[in-house]
């Protein structure tokens, strides 16, 4: 049984789905195997803030019963029914706490489900639990979580990326085959890059934001986290689609992603290298792996072209004006009145204004406060035109740059992040240095275009994962999956297997009974 469990968790979601459909294994076995894995290793990784064992097993049991019953009950099961998934703790779930990685929502139970969660439930995918993140998705290392950092399974002294380090680490550590993340400036893609997993930010509006605790409304998207490109395509097809509860959601069906991942060739496609998104400022080992991917794609019959997006030099600045501005407004609702933490001032008059002030002072971490203040400043009377207003114009310029680039290329390519995973604590004292991690991922959020990161190999100098980023025009997410799947298969052929097979084995605790809460506060 132990070995079987150890094998089970190594499969991709597609692989598990096949085994489940073929009834080689039950959904309960699959879910239990993952719950056991979480119990084994999450003490070291700290990917999970909450483990949802009871409900997950109940859903798995339902799947098994339907399959056993046969007939329409079995036929109507979704292809991924019984495949477990972890959910970033920024997405609301009935029956489990949603903390946003913050003290201000410690123990808060949402009375409603996010739309994507409703879709997971409809597909009967057991939800293993909620994963760790930088508080309110603000960060690139998950070190800003109020519940302790998550550690990179490749090297437990290093960051797993952020803000969605928990989801990426959980998938990298085989605690879950799939996870949901959110990406505002790279929070799915950058963790994907540094943990050797796949992460996708769909076109803005392709996946409903309803139930994702808002960070920057015009930049946020929920997206898939997985170990293979096909798995992300499968997941995006589950969670995507128009949502009448989200006014910014698109009506495009986005039902061609899995097919695209299976096309298997890139013949005749033009792949554009973005001059501004590699080279200077990028770690040598990252550049090397990037160049290798270019060669492989050339070998596969794609044409590599050079494009330039000169306004990308303003992207970081525009992002750090637009994002905090929207954050400052979106986080105003956390005030101790209707839900969450309420802190009373220790002395002085007991007014609601002071209770709000004390609650937010105690409940928010430093990075969150920094961004709220910055955003309040950027929107202030007298500063709007110079800051927020200008940044929105830069957005226009960047969209135009991408439009011009996509006239020359079908997809664009770059390293996902300038460096491999740095050590925990290394960039905590220098917010600006931390922000630079997102320099290659931010432009996609500003423009609303989709982006995918897949493992591109290990850097020579440190043996740590490097991510390759693909970008496509808005609504053309399918192209990412087509090119991504081809590149992935070529790279895996080169490596003799998935890159994650090269990851160090985590020490496992004594395999015992399932615990319902793992991780917890560190």
């Amino acid at each position: 049984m132990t070995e079987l469990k150890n094998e089970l968790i190594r499969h991709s979601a597609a692989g598990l789905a096949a085994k489940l459909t073929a009834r080689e294994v039950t959904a309960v076995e699959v879910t239990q195997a993952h719950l056991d894995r979480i119990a084994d290793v999450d003490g070291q990784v700290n990917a999970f803030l909450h483990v949802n064992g009871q409900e997950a097993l109940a859903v798995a049991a339902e799947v098994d019963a339907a399959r056993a019953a046969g007939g329409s009950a079995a036929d109507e099961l979704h292809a991924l029914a019984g495949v477990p998934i972890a959910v970033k703790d920024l997405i609301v779930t009935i029956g489990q706490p949603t903390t946003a990685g913050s003290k201000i929502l410690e123990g808060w139970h949402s009375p409603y489900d996010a739309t994507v969660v409703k879709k997971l439930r409809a597909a009967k995918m057991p939800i293993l639990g909620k994963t760790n993140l930088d508080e309110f998705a603000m960060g690139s290392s998950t070190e800003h979580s109020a519940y302790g950092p998550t550690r990179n399974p490749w090297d437990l002294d290093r960051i797993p990326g952020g803000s969605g380090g928990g989801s990426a680490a959980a998938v990298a550590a085989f605690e879950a085959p799939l996870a949901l993340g959110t990406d505002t400036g790279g929070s799915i893609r950058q963790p994907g890059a540094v943990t050797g997993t796949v992460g996708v930010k769909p076109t803005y509006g392709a996946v409903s934001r309803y139930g994702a605790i808002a960070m920057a409304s015009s930049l946020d998207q929920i997206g898939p986290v997985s170990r293979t490109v096909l798995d992300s395509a499968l997941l995006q097809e589950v969670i995507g689609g128009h949502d009448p509860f989200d006014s910014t959601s698109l009506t495009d069906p986005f039902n061609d992603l899995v097919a695209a991942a299976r096309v298997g060739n890139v013949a005749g496609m033009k792949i554009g290298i973005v001059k501004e998104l590699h080279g200077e400022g990028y770690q040598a080992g990252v550049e090397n792996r990037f160049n290798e991917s270019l060669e492989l794609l050339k070998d596969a019959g794609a044409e590599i072209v050079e494009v330039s997006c000169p306004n990308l030099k303003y992207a970081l600045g525009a992002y750090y004006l637009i994002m905090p501005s929207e954050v400052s407004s979106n986080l105003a609702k956390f005030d101790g009145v209707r839900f969450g933490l309420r802190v009373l001032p220790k002395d002085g008059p007991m007014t609601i204004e002071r209770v709000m002030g004390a609650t937010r002072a105690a409940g928010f971490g430093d990075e969150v406060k920094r961004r709220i203040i910055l955003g309040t400043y950027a929107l202030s009377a007298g500063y709007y035109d110079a800051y927020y207003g200008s940044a929105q114009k830069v957005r226009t310029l960047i969209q135009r740059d991408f439009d011009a680039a996509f006239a020359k290329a079908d997809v664009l390519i770059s390293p996902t992040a300038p460096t491999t995973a740095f050590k925990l604590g290394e960039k905590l004292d220098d917010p600006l240095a931390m922000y630079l991690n997102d320099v290659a991922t931010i432009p996609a959020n500003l423009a609303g275009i989709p982006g995918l990161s897949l493992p591109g190999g290990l850097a020579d100098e440190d043996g740590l994962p490097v991510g390759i980023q693909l970008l496509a025009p808005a609504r053309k997410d399918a192209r990412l999956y087509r090119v991504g799947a081809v590149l992935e298969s070529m790279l895996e052929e080169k490596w003799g297997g998935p890159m994650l097979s090269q990851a160090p084995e985590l020490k496992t605790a004594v395999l015992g009974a399932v615990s319902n809460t793992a991780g917890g506060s560190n």
Partner: protein
Amino acid sequence: MSVDATLSFEEAMEKYDPVLGFEVHVELNTKTKMFSSAPNVFGDEPNTNVNEVDLGMPGVLPVVNKTAVESSIKIGLALNCKIAETCRFARKNYFYPDTPKNFQTSQYDEPIAYDGYLDIELEDGTVFRVEIERAHMEEDAGKLTHMGGAAGRIQGADYSLVDYNRSGVPLVEIVTKPIEGAGSRAPELAKAYVAAVREIVKNLGVSDAKMERGNVRCDANVSLRPHGRERFGIRSETKNVNSLRAVEHAVRYEIQRHAAVLDSGEPVIQETRHWHEDTRSTTSGRPKSDADDYRYFPEPDLVPVVASREWVEELRATLPEPPAERRKRLKEAWGYSDLEFRDVVNAGVMDSIEETIAAGASADVARKWWMGEIVGRAKVADVDPSELGVTPQVIVELNKLVEDGKINNKMATQVLDGVLAGEGTPAEIVEKRGLAVVSDDGPLLEAIDAALAAQPDVAEKIRGGKVQAIGAIVGGVMKATRGQADAGRVRELILEKLGVEG
């Protein structure tokens, strides 16, 4: 609470020229809220007409109510505004417990309607054009109740309770351009303007327009400047003006107060004031700052509204008869003279009369009751006639009782008073009080005999041909029957008895 000094209105007008401005908030009567599908219903149990969106829970998003947009466009058209070809929503950021997101989703520099006007007819027929700056869409806040302090006031309250049922209800805010040149008619114009807006939105069917329920709310801005000066004076904004009378009184009071301040050589403080109906005065709220930093920015969760010209024309075609035209039509239908009709309109009972006619009364009967009996009583009680507590059904019932001869007109007014005192329906009161016209001639003849016997000389006069003297006998009979005789019938019987032609 110190009382502010005021100048007399006349003195204030001698020295200063008032400039007015109004922000009227209209609550739409859509079935659901502006940005969520929770019910838009008045008065239910607290926090039962809310969902996660209305509570501003983490992760929620707004979705625009199409009917609210259409209603807003209709209001804009009725106010002769231009309708924006494209407009966006904006966030107005401020912290307050009744505002669940701690920002209000509103419109800032892109209102859906702008640059309109309304021609206001005053009581004497003078027409005044009020220019409308804009009308925009926004959402209402929840309701705060302050506990522990004096009389539900915010000062001194220990704690407050919040009900979010009202949070998210669609509002249209109508803002005027500065209104100049009203002079001493300013208070009158203020009332007439708000009444006109109220009438329009009610007529459009987009709002219940009950001021007492907060369906139409008015913030009045007042400033004074010395005669002849172009620059506006510093203004104050008065909130909590909940009725048409209050609008008139508040504007008048603020003019008087500003005048006293200016006369004393002090500058007027730019602030928000609260109107108090009980003391007929305003008190100071918090200082109004045009620099209140709301940090407006376009609402990223909502997409622009594009009002194509086709759509606007479709909506324009559905607009009902404008109130001014309706008035003309009703006057003709009812057959009132110009003066009679104007009195009816000025008294504010035109709608009530229309309702009463619909309930079964004739135009003349309706007017007789509303103008003759109710308006006077409303004045004494210091309320608007429609708020006195008389329904069209009561009038129809009263009138029928009189027409059927069950009671006479004098009794009918007594019964009306009984209805107002809460004694029940007209029929119940007639029964309870034992009012009934004595229609049986028997008792009448007895009373007549007694009265004639008591006043023999009067009887002689009548027999002699002095019919006018009959009044004394009638009076005697009425007294004896405690007013329950039909005076006309009594007179007939007396004449019969005395064998005299009347």
